């Protein structure tokens, strides 16, 4: 199997998707000749032409809105929003239209599509090239939200999202674009949505992470092991609908939970995970569930490594959970 980084794996997935089904179109700002600012769409316009790989004007709401129309007609648009920070101008079309179209039409219409976007910090992008915007989408009924951490999963989850009948917000951890490398199968395959991956098993503490923070969680877990604390580390992969069984089973076994995410803590996805775990396996909890997250500030520039919930902040939380 070829070894690829995440950009290559995603590019491969798009190529496979475009090649398999002529109803698939890729659209967004600068996805054509330049191949996207991160090159995820590189070479696609040359291979599939200007009609199916479309450089659009600069209006995210319009891109998503037009993609909804395409989807109503039976196409499967894959929209690129240049940075997750620029999803907000499209938020109304996503919340009020995309997410509700099937429901409000009594199932007469549906709008399956994928909105891909690079997310997260650690590339010195400041406020506007670093946000990790899952929570305001997970809150909206009708959307699925995906966030891969490996090239293998990136390709398999993207192909699963393309085939999924529901709209998928596909968050790509940009810090992993070139850093994450791994074996990626040729051709078409899918990684099922709604299935988490247990990356490391241990009896003491359950650590839930996703995207770029997975590697921080794993690093912290390795260091905790040196101190005799063995963690289970779960890579959620699909954030919503979340694989609650895997989480509940693990917390039932460990009794201790640490949730990690880059986004600000308050009303972040970590809160939901804590609440879910409390509702289901409360009597198995032996310590307060802990959130290790981005701070409740805008994403900073110079101090971004202090902002991010990296290993050095996860480790103490894990040790404290284990020991309380």
């Amino acid at each position, binding site marked *: 199997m070829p070894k690829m980084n995440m950009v290559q794996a995603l590019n491969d997935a798009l190529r496979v998707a475009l090649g398999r089904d002529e109803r698939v179109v890729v659209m967004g700002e600068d996805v054509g000749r330049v191949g996207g600012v991160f090159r995820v769409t590189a070479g696609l316009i040359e291979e599939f032409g200007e009609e199916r790989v479309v450089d659009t*004007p600069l209006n995210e709401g*319009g891109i998503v809105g037009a993609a*909804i*129309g395409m989807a109503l007609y039976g196409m499967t648009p894959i929209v690129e929003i240049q940075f997750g920070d620029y999803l907000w101008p499209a938020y109304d*079309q996503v919340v009020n*239209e995309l997410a509700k179209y099937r*429901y*409000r039409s009594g199932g007469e*219409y549906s709008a399956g599509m994928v909105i891909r976007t690079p997310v997260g910090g650690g590339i010195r992008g400041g406020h506007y090239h670093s946000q990790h915007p899952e929570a305001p989408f997970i809150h909206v*009924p009708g959307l699925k939200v995906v966030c891969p951490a490996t090239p293998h999963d990136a390709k398999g989850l993207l192909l699963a999202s393309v085939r999924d009948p529901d709209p998928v917000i596909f968050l790509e951890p940009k810090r992993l674009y070139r850093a994450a490398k791994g074996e990626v199968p040729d051709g078409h395959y899918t990684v099922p949505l709604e299935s988490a991956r247990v990356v490391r098993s241990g009896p003491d503490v359950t650590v839930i992470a996703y995207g770029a923070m997975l590697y921080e969680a794993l690093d912290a877990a390795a260091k905790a092991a040196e101190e005799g604390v063995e963690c289970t580390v779960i890579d959620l992969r699909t954030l919503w609908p979340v694989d609650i069984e895997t989480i509940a089973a693990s917390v039932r076994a460990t009794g201790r939970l640490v949730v990690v995410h880059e986004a600000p803590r308050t009303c972040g996805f970590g809160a939901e995970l804590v609440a879910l775990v409390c509702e289901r396996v409360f009597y198995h909890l032996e310590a307060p569930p802990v959130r290790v997250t981005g701070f409740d500030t805008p994403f900073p520039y110079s101090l971004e490594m202090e902002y991010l919930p990296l290993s050095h902040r996860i480790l103490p939380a894990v040790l404290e959970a284990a020991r309380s």
Partner: protein
Amino acid sequence: MTQTERQESRNPAPLRDVVRVLGDDGTIVDPTLDPGLSGPELVALYRDMSRTRILDERLLTLQRQGRIGFHVGSLGEEATIIGATYALRPQDWIFPCYRESGAAVTRGLPLQAFVDNVFGNANDLVKGRQMPDHHTGRAVRFASTSSPVGTQIPHAVGVAWAAKLRRDDVVTLAFFGDGATSTNDFHAAANLAGVFRLPVILLCRNNGWAISTPVERQTASPTFAEKGNAYGVPGVRVDGNDALAVIAVVRRAVERARSGAGATLIEALTYRMGAHTSSDDPSRYRTESEIRPWVERDPLERVRRLLEARRLISRADDDAYRAEVDRSFREAVAVAECTPPPGLHTLHEDVYATPPWHLVEQREALLRGSRPAAPPRTV
């Protein structure tokens, strides 16, 4: 080519003139533009406009009687709504705002389905999930009606775009109001329509008001039609109370779209004679005297005068048709009103294609739980 030259090779001219075919008195004022409908076609047009008005009146009455929760009417705007619908072909799609439910019926949405929607009952195509008059009709290529202003315009652009990519002979038409031209969605959609030369018709029903906001507070542009220039989309103004003129300009726009020349922005000059919706009280912001000139320009009367002059219908025919609409509406209401509300099991359907675990759990909890005591509590 320098970039300036590239830009100047495209040059849609502004169109300030207002297209008219049928005078207020029902005579043809511009035969060159007359779409040339046959006698039976004219009768059908009249009847569809007429039914639209009757249903509107009846629904308002039901709302006042407290039998339905809400109504949004189209009094005085029937020529724009029904005329535009007439000019489309069966394969063309309509993207309505909330004021064009008459178009759905004209296209063939069964009256019972129409009435079930306003009652939001178990037979409602959208399972009682939307407010009254928010119709959906996939079978008649009528998109799902949404309350947010303007959001349907990019959808119309997207369907047109998809049809173009699929080489299908399909044109889409988006209805929207003067107020909607201020939204992001109008701007984004018109821009995409222009850049990609899409087979879409952007039909602005300029009815003078956006709730209490008059057009001059909505924009300082002299006309809505010329807003098309900003997008390389030709604009045309039409007398929106003149059904034949509306048919003529929409047909022209359909032809333009089919020929690959792209989109048209149509500004139909009409007037919202009623309240914004059943929740509105226009006496707070406009005088009766403003409405009066528009009574003279009643779009229905104009067509009726034409039909009478051509002896295509008699007063008796008309009365019979109106009685027939009335009767079938009453029957549909009788059925709808004793149809129960949607079953509890529908509440969690269609959020996703297949309900995920959390919705399954929530549905089970709902079905297991007790029923609410009406009415809700306060203070």
